[in-house]
């Protein structure tokens, strides 16, 4: 029973931790893009608790700035997945492994959830604070084409996701 409670606590902790990590990386991507464009970051709110996660840039909104958040999220997730699949086994089969496996799972969960919402937000209007909606409006591309492109990215990223998840299930599992 003690093991069960510890397992639940690990999954809840990593769930919230990933909910802090993923938007922080996303907003950092916007901030970096802002600096690359020669602007200054006017405000930076990475955590989605209480207030909305958001980054303000003095250089104004550009398609690059809008896309930078999700692109940074994808790059960070690919790096995290690579490290987890290569180095994860070194952690053994104890609590540290359970923590790392659950954190990787929730990290993937939030990144894929974010991308899936982006496919829907491609159709959203500008007053809503959605990157994909702004990107479509600024570039003038067809929202359907934007959605299909994001769905294609999800499918491509699904290959390493399924591979690493099945490898984890075959070896140490996700704890428990």
């Amino acid at each position, binding site marked *: 029973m003690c093991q069960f409670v510890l397992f639940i606590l*690990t999954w809840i902790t990593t769930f919230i931790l990933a909910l802090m990590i993923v938007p922080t990386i996303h907003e950092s991507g916007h901030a970096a893009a802002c600096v690359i464009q020669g602007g200054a970051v006017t405000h930076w709110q990475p955590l989605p608790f209480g207030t909305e996660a958001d980054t303000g840039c003095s250089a104004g909104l550009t398609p690059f700035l809008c896309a930078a958040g999700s692109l940074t999220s994808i790059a960070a997730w690919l790096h995290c997945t690579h490290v987890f699949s290569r180095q994860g086994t070194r952690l053994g089969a104890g609590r540290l492994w359970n923590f790392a496996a659950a954190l990787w799972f929730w990290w993937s969960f*939030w990144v894929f*959830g974010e991308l899936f919402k982006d496919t829907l937000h491609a159709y959203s209007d500008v007053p809503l604070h959605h*990157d994909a909606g702004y990107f479509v409006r600024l570039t003038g591309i067809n929202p359907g084409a934007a959605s299909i492109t994001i769905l294609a990215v999800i499918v491509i990223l699904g290959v390493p996701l399924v591979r690493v998840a099945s490898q984890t*299930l075959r070896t140490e*599992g*996700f704890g428990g």
Partner: protein
Amino acid sequence: MTNETVKKLPALATGVGSGPLSLRLFTTLGVPVGGPAGDSVAPFAFWLASSSIAQVCAAGLFVGGSILWLAADWTKSRLGQQDDVPNERDREEARASA
């Protein structure tokens, strides 16, 4: 899929279910998570915390996974206990060889 992999799935289901349920708990306790018009994961987190479909699915995964996992654990420990207790035939064989 091996037997060992099948045993790990209820644990995974329990863990997956615990996430959205904890998000709802945070919202109930007064910590708003995400928002429909937010950036990054905020809309997805908001949907997970507020959607009844998401919460029912999470509760189903959590309860179903927990029951299966604890049942598997209980069965495993019972079988382990039975293996530890030598049966009558084992004792007779031990006497004969002595």
